[in-house]
C-alpha cells in the first residue's frame, strides 16, 4: 500500500507544480506599444467580408468607408468617398467621387472600382440588393451614373449602409483581409476573436494618430468589464450595466448615448379590440415610460415620444396634451368596470401580448405592462414567441407585441415609415391599411428633395401619433466605458457605425 501512496503523492505534487508553472510563469501580454489601443466590442464576427458582415466590423474598425456617411451631430447624410451627388433625372443619380484616394494596397479608387464594389455588394447580399434598388451602374469619366429601378429618393441615404462599403474586389481573401480605403488596414483576423489593425499611412484624410489597434470581440458584458478593469482594454463597448457605478468610482468614464432604436408596442389594428382608437390610446396612456426607463433599463434609455429620436430633423415636436387616464379612454370606448374587470357588452377586455427573449428588456416591459393593466381591470396574457417578424407576419391571434425597431438607421425616415405603415411594407405587422396614410407614404416615396421629405415624414409621424397606430416606449442607450485621461478622441455615436477613427489617440 505504501508504494501506491508514494507514487500517487509524487505524481500529484509534480502535476501541481507543473500546472502552477504553466499558468503563472510569465506575464499575459507584451508591453504596449506607443499609440496602441485595445477596443472590446460586444458582437463577434466570423467573416470580415464588408458586404456580408452584419456586425459591420470593417466599417466600425476604420478599415472600410462608404460613399456617404451619417453626421452624428446634424443627423444628416454627408459626403465621404463621394464628394457630391445630383439627380440627373427622377431615377438617375450622378455620383462625383473624391479625388486621389487609394485603397490600402495602393490601388487607386476610381469610378470603375466603385462600380465593381457596389455590384459585388448587390451580388453578395440580397438585403443590399433590395435596399439599393439599382437597375444599372455606368462609369461616366470620373463619375458614376446610377439608375434605380423606380423613383427612389432614399437611394443616397441607403448608401450609408456599411454593407455597401467600397473595397478592392480584386484583393484576395476578402472574408479575412478586406482592402478598403479607411485609416486602418487589417493585419490579422482571428474569426470570432479579434482583428489586428495597423495604421494606413496612405490614408486620404488626416493620418490616424494611433499606430495600431486590437479590435477584440467578447459577447459577455462581465468579461468586457473585467478587461477594462484589468487594463487589458482601453475602450469597452457596452460594459455590464451593474458595474457602471463601480467603473465610475474607479475614475473611468462611462458614456450613455441614445440610439436610433425604439422599443415599442406594436398594435394589431386589423382585428380585435385594438381596432378601436380609444382602446389604443388607453394602452398608450397606461404605459409609465419613466418607470420603464428607471427600472427596466436602469436609467440607460430616454423616454420615447415618437418613433424617432428628437434630434432628427423629421422628428415632430409633440405638443403636451392634457394627460388623460387609461380608464377615461376605455370608458370612451364603451368599457365599464364590473366585478374588477373592464367589460363591454358583458365581455371582459383581455389582450394577448407577444414578447420574445432575443432582447432581454422586452419580456420585462411586457410584465410591467401586464401588472399595470391588471390594476385597471384589463387582463393581459403574455405569449412568448421565438421570431417576432415571422409570428406577427403569419398570425393574427394577438393584440399587442413588444418590439424593437431601428427607425432611421441611415438618416432617412422613409425606410421605417414605409416598411411599418404601408400596406405593402415588410414590417407592417399591425395590418395598417389607412388610405390617407398610404397616400402620404406614396408621396414620400416620390419626393426627392430632402427638406420636402423631412416635412412630409414629420406629417406622417404626426398622423401615426394621432391615430395611435403604435405606442412608442423608449430609446435604449448605448454605453461605452474608457479612461478619459488615457484615451483621447473617442466619440460614442448614435448611429453606432463609426468607432475606430483617425482622431483616436492614447496618452
Amino acid at each position: 500500500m505504501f508504494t501506491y501512496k508514494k507514487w500517487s503523492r509524487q505524481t500529484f505534487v509534480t502535476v501541481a507544480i507543473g500546472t502552477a508553472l504553466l499558468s503563472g510563469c510569465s506575464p499575459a501580454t507584451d508591453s504596449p506599444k506607443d499609440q496602441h489601443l485595445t477596443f472590446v466590442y460586444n458582437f463577434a464576427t466570423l467573416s470580415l467580408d464588408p458586404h456580408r458582415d452584419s456586425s459591420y466590423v470593417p466599417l466600425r474598425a476604420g478599415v472600410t468607408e462608404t460613399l456617404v456617411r451619417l453626421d452624428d451631430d446634424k443627423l444628416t447624410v454627408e459626403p465621404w468617398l463621394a464628394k457630391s451627388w445630383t439627380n440627373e433625372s427622377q431615377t438617375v443619380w450622378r455620383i462625383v467621387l473624391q479625388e486621389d484616394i487609394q485603397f490600402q494596397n495602393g490601388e487607386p479608387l476610381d469610378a470603375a472600382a466603385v462600380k465593381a464594389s457596389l455590384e459585388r455588394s448587390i451580388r453578395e447580399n440580397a438585403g443590399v440588393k433590395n435596399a439599393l434598388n439599382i437597375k444599372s451602374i455606368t462609369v461616366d469619366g470620373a463619375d458614376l451614373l446610377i439608375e434605380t429601378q423606380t423613383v427612389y429618393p432614399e437611394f443616397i441615404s441607403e448608401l450609408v449602409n456599411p454593407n455597401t462599403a467600397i473595397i478592392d474586389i480584386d484583393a484576395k481573401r476578402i472574408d479575412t483581409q478586406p482592402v478598403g480605403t479607411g485609416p486602418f488596414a487589417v493585419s490579422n483576423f482571428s474569426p470570432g476573436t479579434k482583428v489586428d489593425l495597423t495604421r494606413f499611412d496612405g490614408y486620404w484624410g488626416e493620418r490616424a494618430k494611433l499606430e495600431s489597434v486590437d479590435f477584440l470581440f467578447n459577447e459577455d458584458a462581465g468579461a468586457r468589464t473585467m478587461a477594462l478593469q484589468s487594463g487589458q482594454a482601453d475602450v469597452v463597448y457596452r460594459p455590464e450595466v451593474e458595474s457602471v457605478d463601480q467603473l465610475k468610482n474607479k475614475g473611468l468614464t462611462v458614456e450613455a448615448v441614445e440610439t436610433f432604436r425604439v422599443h415599442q408596442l406594436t398594435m394589431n389594428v386589423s382585428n380585435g379590440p385594438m381596432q378601436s382608437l380609444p382602446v389604443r390610446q388607453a394602452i398608450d396612456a397606461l404605459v409609465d415610460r419613466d418607470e420603464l426607463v428607471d427600472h427596466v433599463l436602469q436609467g440607460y434609455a430616454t423616454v420615447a415620444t415618437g418613433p424617432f429620436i428628437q434630434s432628427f430633423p423629421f422628428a415632430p415636436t409633440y405638443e403636451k396634451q392634457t394627460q388623460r387616464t387609461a380608464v377615461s379612454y376605455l370608458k370612451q370606448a364603451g368599457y365599464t368596470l364590473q366585478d374588477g374587470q373592464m367589460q363591454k357588452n358583458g365581455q371582459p377586455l383581455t389582450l394577448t401580448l407577444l414578447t420574445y427573449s432575443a432582447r432581454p428588456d422586452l419580456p420585462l416591459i411586457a410584465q410591467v405592462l401586464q401588472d399595470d393593466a391588471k390594476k385597471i381591470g384589463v387582463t393581459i396574457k403574455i405569449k412568448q414567441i421565438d421570431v417576432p417578424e415571422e409570428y406577427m407576419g403569419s398570425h393574427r391571434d394577438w393584440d399587442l407585441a413588444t418590439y424593437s425597431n431601428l427607425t432611421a438607421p441611415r438618416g432617412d425616415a422613409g425606410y421605417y415609415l414605409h416598411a411599418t405603415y404601408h400596406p405593402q411594407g415588410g414590417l407592417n405587422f399591425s395590418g395598417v391599411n389607412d388610405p390617407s396614410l398610404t397616400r402620404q407614404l406614396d408621396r414620400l416615396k416620390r419626393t426627392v428633395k430632402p427638406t420636402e421629405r423631412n416635412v412630409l415624414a414629420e406629417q406622417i409621424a404626426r398622423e401615426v401619433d394621432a391615430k395611435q397606430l403604435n405606442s412608442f416606449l423608449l430609446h435604449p442607450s448605448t454605453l461605452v466605458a474608457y479612461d478619459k485621461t488615457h484615451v483621447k478622441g473617442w466619440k460614442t455615436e448614435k448611429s453606432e457605425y463609426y468607432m475606430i477613427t483617425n482622431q483616436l489617440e492614447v496618452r
Partner: protein
Amino acid sequence: MGRLFVRQTGEALFFLFFMTFGSFALLRFLPGDPVLTLLNIDELSASPEQIETVRRELGFHEPLLAQYIDWLSRVGRLDLGESFMTGRPVLLMLGESYRATFEIAGSGLVLALLLAVPLGTWSACSNRHVVRLTADGVSLIGAAVPSFWIGLVLTDWFAIRLPWLPVMGRDGVLSIVLPAVSLSLALASIYIQLLRVNLQTELAKEYIQIARARGLSEQTIFWKYAFRGSLPPVLAVFTLSLGSLAGGVVVLEVLFAYPGVGKLMVDAVLQRDYPLIQGYILLTTAIIVALNVIMRLVTQHLRPDWRGGGMR
C-alpha cells in the same frame, strides 16, 4: 475484431443517416426563417415579394426529400455548402471552430485527468482522512460550482488582481489556461470519484488476494490487474465527456471569447443558418460515433471478457 468493426461501421452509417435526415426535417419545421435574417429585415426594407424571391432562390420551395438529397449529394463531394451568415464554406468554419474547441476542451480534459488520476488513486489506496477529504473536496467543488463561475473567479484572481493571464481571446498558450482550468475542475470531479470507487472494488476482489498469495509484486498487482480492471467504466465516461465536449463548451467559449463550435452553433441556431447546423450535426455525430467505436475496441482489448459493456 473484424466482424465487430464491420458491424460497428454499419451501425454508424445508419445512425449518421438517421441523425442528418431527422435534423434536416426538424429544422424546416422549427419556427424561424433564415430568409428574414439574410435580408436583414430588422434594418432593411423588403417587400413580401422580395422575401419570396429569395426563398425560391434558396430552394426552400422544393420538397423536403429533394432538398435533403441535394444536400447529401453535395456532402458526397465533401461540399457542406456555404454559411448563410457569412458566405464562407461550412467545412472551413467548422474546422476553425473545432480547433478552438479542442484547444480548450482537450487541455481541460488533460488537466482533469492529471488531477483526477493521482487524486483518485491516492484516495483509493490511502486510509488517511485528510487524503479522502481532499479528494471529496475537489470533487464536490467541481461538481457543485458551475464552470463559468469558476472561470469568473479565476479571471478575477489571475487576470485582474494578478495580471498574469489574459482576460479573453485566443492568443497563444496563456489564453488557454483560464478556460482549461475552469473546465478541468468540473470534469475532474467525476473521474476522481469514479476511479476511486472502481479501484477500491477491484482491489477488494478475490483475484487480487490470490495474486498477493502467489507472491506477485504490489506494483504488478496494481498496474497490471487492479488499475487496468478499473479502467473500462472510466473509459466509457471519458468517451461520453469527449462526445459532449465535441459539441462545444459554449458558456466558457462566450466568457473567454474563445471562438469554439458551441458558440458558433448557438449563433447558427438563432439565425437559422441551415447549412452550418447540418454540417455541425454531421461532423459531431461522426466524431461521437467514431469515439464510441474506438472506446468499444479499446475496452475489448483491456477486458476481453467484456462484450458490448457486459461481462461474459
